[in-house]
């Protein structure tokens, strides 16, 4: 483990960005944090987390996949993606690092998604432990430790110091790069911070929310439950929950005719939208109840069925804070069978 002075953090950012792009949470004028490319003058946000999750770095909201031009009987294809440079994402919270595992299962299994894979290969994750969790946090429900070691490098933030631990080869390289600003310290140096985090985490209102009643074998148990009606009745059908969610992974691929050529692009889609997965025969889920159910069944039942019991929620709490009607996965779990407050 190594440590650095908190006051030297801008010098560290500057050093990293000399050799590669560095992204980190920065406050906007309204005081909300979003990932921003670091440049001189940008300040690392104090916020617990960003409005939009860091999944954008690997699975961008919109990306061009290719361009093509048809002339006579010829079709000319052009690769528009250029993903060959390393980059660092600093300040990723443990829940969000776990979300990359959720996305990996989908995008890196066969057929492998080359765009995603290239970004994962070049991306270096520096996670930062959560010193100040919010009431909306429930990462414990999914076995995530807010003080734990995640990403290529883990950072624990103390009052005046940062403690750094490299977890992978990629992480070692970053640590080497900034070695002039860090010094070696005892491996237990961050234990006080970890203990403090654990103490606060015990007070979280959703601390005891359990996912044990959900899982891959529960389709029959939950699919036709009458509670879906009241749970979904006020859903606006907007895409806020899916677009702030670090694990939502559905997308659409479309062609855009520029007049000169055609750009094939991919963009996030939301199962909450009326035209989601629309086919020539129509949209398979005609009501908002069915679309709403799909989202939560996917996170709590279908995904675990496909990926060895892993849930596709990491308890980041973004949807709890953003949903215009305050309906969310916690309310769904408690209504259908999650245990809490015990």
């Amino acid at each position: 483990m190594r440590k650095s002075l908190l006051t030297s953090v801008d010098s560290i950012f500057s050093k990293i960005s000399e050799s590669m792009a560095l992204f980190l949470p920065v406050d906007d004028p309204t005081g909300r944090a979003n990932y921003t490319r670091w440049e001189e003058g940008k300040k690392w946000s104090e916020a617990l987390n960003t409005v939009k999750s860091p999944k954008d770095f690997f699975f961008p909201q919109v990306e061009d996949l290719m361009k093509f031009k048809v002339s006579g009987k010829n079709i000319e294809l052009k690769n528009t993606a250029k993903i060959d440079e390393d980059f660092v994402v600093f300040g990723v919270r443990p829940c969000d690092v776990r979300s990359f595992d959720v996305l990996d299962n989908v995008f890196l299994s066969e057929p492998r998604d080359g765009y995603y894979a290239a970004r994962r290969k070049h991306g270096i994750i520096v996670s930062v432990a959560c010193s100040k969790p919010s009431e909306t946090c429930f990462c414990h429900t999914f076995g995530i430790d807010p003080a734990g070691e995640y990403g290529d490098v883990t950072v624990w933030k103390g009052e005046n110091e940062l403690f750094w631990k490299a977890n992978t080869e990629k992480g070692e390289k970053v640590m080497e790069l900034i070695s002039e600003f860090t010094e070696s310290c005892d491996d237990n140096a961050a234990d006080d911070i970890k203990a403090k985090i654990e103490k606060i985490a015990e007070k979280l209102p959703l601390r005891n929310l359990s996912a044990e009643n959900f899982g891959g074998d529960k389709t029959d148990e939950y699919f036709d439950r009458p509670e879906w009606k009241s749970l979904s009745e006020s859903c606006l059908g907007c895409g806020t929950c899916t677009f702030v969610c670090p694990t939502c992974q559905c997308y659409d691929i479309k062609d855009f005719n520029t007049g000169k050529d055609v750009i094939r692009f991919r963009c996030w889609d939301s199962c909450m939208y009326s035209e989601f997965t629309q086919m020539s025969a129509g949209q398979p889920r005609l009501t908002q109840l069915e679309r709403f159910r799909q989202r939560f069944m996917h996170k709590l039942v279908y995904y675990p069925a496909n990926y060895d019991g892993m849930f596709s929620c990491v308890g980041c709490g973004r949807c709890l804070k953003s949903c215009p009607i305050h309906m969310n996965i916690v309310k769904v779990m408690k209504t259908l069978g999650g245990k809490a407050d015990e």
Partner: protein
Amino acid sequence: MQRITREMLTSKAISLLNDGTVSAVLGWREGEFSYDLTPSLFYTAEDIEQNFVFNDFCGANFSKYLVTKTLGIEGKILAFLKPCDTYSFNQLLTEHRIDRSKVYVVGISCDGMADISKIRAITGDGISSISCEPDGLKVQTIYDDEPKTVSYEDAMAERCICCKSKKHVCYDELIGEEGEENPDCNRFGKVAELEAMTPDERFAFWRGELSRCIRCNACRDVCPACTCEKCVFNNPNSGAENKAPATSFEEQMFHIIRAFHVAGRCTDCGECSRVCPQHIPLHLLNRKFIKDINTFYGEYQAGKEVGSRAPLVDYTTGDLEPGQVFEREGM
């Protein structure tokens, strides 16, 4: 703090359910924390007694829900409408989107609703409970031993600080005192500031704000003026489908086009800005249109009267010539 209490509403709701006046009640259902209430239909007195909540976090505008909730239900729905909600309700009646005979409107007076992000900015994160006391909101966080008091003034949502009217423009019965319109609410103050900017400054302001948009469509989906059965931006056959913008300019166009689309129909309820996860002040676009309509065609408030003709869809011989708009100072 609301002078209207939960008990006033629940006893009214239960008596109207019991005497058969209504078959369902549109109200607020309890959440995990004190501030995360969900609009919901209640069908039984038991459900109302157990789960109906009313406090300073009941900001959601119920009017749009009535468009769909009144379909496929036997009898009437009781809707508790705050003054601002009644303007949206009237506007929807004007647009023939709600069957008036299916709704029993109980107007409730409103003392302004709280904005949880403003509270969070004062108390910090980790809010475990909030209680509404006479001297302010008592906010308990997991980081403090004692609750912090946040004054109602500091907690009040921006749209409530410059509330245009405490008067209900539609109701079957009223709970609480009837208020007055408030022409001195200064709701165009920020618009005037933007108008005073140079075009470059104003462009930079909006580009900065709109660049945060994640295109979740919450602003559109909550908007009582956006009740198209199928929005062109969601319709693959429209030629204008816009699941993702090709450029950041197009992203900005979405909001500007939407503001044009609701111009003259927007009652300035402020729901668009309330629900925006990125806190983009979208209501300022709408207020700009309202201010311009007032300037060019005379004072007009959408939703004030059912059946009123908005200046932009009406013609009078006194209408100004389009060229005249370019002669004004400030845009």
